[in-house]
């Protein structure tokens, strides 16, 4: 399993692996929004938490379709499925690798983009914390969506249609944490619910995703 993690990370970092694509997308989105809505600091400060969360979510979505599709194309997914390691574990590891290459860079980059969007001072800590707690859920949910569409030739668009509704609770709680943090309110409840969603989906969704992969490989 560690070997698989290392392999996935290496594939992602090499040329054409798509590492940094999501990050670049996130950066461009954070630049485009002020250009679109105008540079008024007050407005930017109000919408910054939501924009950053939506941006993180879309950036995550961008690299999902290659999560299983590439392995499916060259046949290595069949090999992985017949390996002695349980498929559920493989899905979890692949989702984890996806998070390390997509989610974690977003978490690191988010404060910088927060400056661009005039995010209020106290919210920075909560932004990083909520992304840190929330983005693993995005990767796992996305892995489930990718597993559903792995057999399709052009699954990318369908994948976003399937996955985006599933992202709704994560987005609501994540953005709520940041905007409450920005106003100096207590953030305990949404933060706990966000962590709960991450824990629940990380525990259960690999099973659903593995089931979907087995159906697709049948």
């Amino acid at each position, binding site marked *: 399993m560690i070997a698989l993690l290392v392999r996935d990370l290496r594939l992602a970092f090499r040329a054409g692996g798509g590492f940094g694509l999501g990050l670049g997308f996130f950066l461009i989105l954070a630049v485009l929004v002020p250009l679109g809505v105008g540079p008024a600091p007050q407005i930017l400060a109000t919408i910054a938490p939501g924009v950053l969360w939506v941006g993180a979510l879309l950036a995550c979505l961008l690299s999902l379709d290659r999560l299983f599709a590439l392995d499916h194309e060259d046949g290595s997914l069949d090999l992985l499925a017949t390996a002695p390691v349980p498929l559920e574990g493989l899905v979890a590891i692949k989702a984890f690798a996806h998070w390390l290459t997509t989610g974690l860079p977003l978490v690191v980059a988010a404060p910088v983009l927060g400056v661009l969007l005039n995010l209020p001072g106290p919210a920075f800590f909560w932004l990083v914390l909520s992304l840190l707690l929330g983005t693993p859920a995005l990767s796992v949910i996305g892995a*489930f969506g990718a597993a*559903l569409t792995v057999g399709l030739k052009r699954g990318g668009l369908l994948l976003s*249609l399937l996955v985006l*509704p599933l992202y709704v*609770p994560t987005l609501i709680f994540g953005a*709520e944490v940041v905007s409450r943090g920005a106003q100096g309110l207590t953030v305990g409840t949404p933060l706990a619910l966000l962590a709960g*969603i991450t824990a629940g989906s990380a525990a259960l969704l690999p099973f*659903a995703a593995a089931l979907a992969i087995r159906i697709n490989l049948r």
Partner: protein
Amino acid sequence: MTSRSQPSTLWEYANPVRFMRLSDWLLPACAVAALVLSAIGLIWGFFFTPDDFRQGATVKILFLHVPAALMAINAWIMMLVASLIWLIRRHHVSALAARAAAPVGAVMTLIALYTGAVWGQPMWGTWWAWDPRLTSFLILFLFYLGYMALWSAIEDGDTAADLTAVLCLVGSVFALLSRYAAFFWSQGLHQGASLSLQPGTRMDWAYKAPLYISMTGFGLIFLALVLAGTRTEIRSRRMKALMARERMQG
């Protein structure tokens, strides 16, 4: 068990032949009853109920809005049950019924959203508000879209049935989560439940009676459409099988 014996359990209708025989008479009966009941409910509701003392005549859209919203949710629940039956017992009729229910549920969701907007404009002064109930219905609509898109994207019937069933199960959990997330977000404009099993009337029988008739009518409309859709699916599968057989011979 001989093939001529009377069906003793519901499971026997998992046999497509039995299902077709049953729906031969059940479908027209349902369709007629649905038309009659919803016509009675809607006409009674629209023309023979008193105006509300605060909301005036606008309240009458209730007789369209509430049954549609009810069926929008119940259609998803029915799909959930049918998906579970398919995953556990592998009855094809069940999977096809789930497929047939999705467009009906999506249209019911749209009707509920549209009538809600029409009602909300004079009452709340806005067509749309990011109210929890409205938001969760919009999200439900997106779930229907994704479900139908997945069905139509996969060519192999059984694979599609399996994958959509899994999506339906996972989607149900997330739809519920989204609903509570949206409620957490704000309390909203939408009124609470008007109908309740608990004693203490919130709504007069002058409204309740046509509303219940209309709700029954909408339930039957849903049933009739699902039956018709399932029959179409079964026939199209038979056609495919026949064509495959002819190609084998020819």
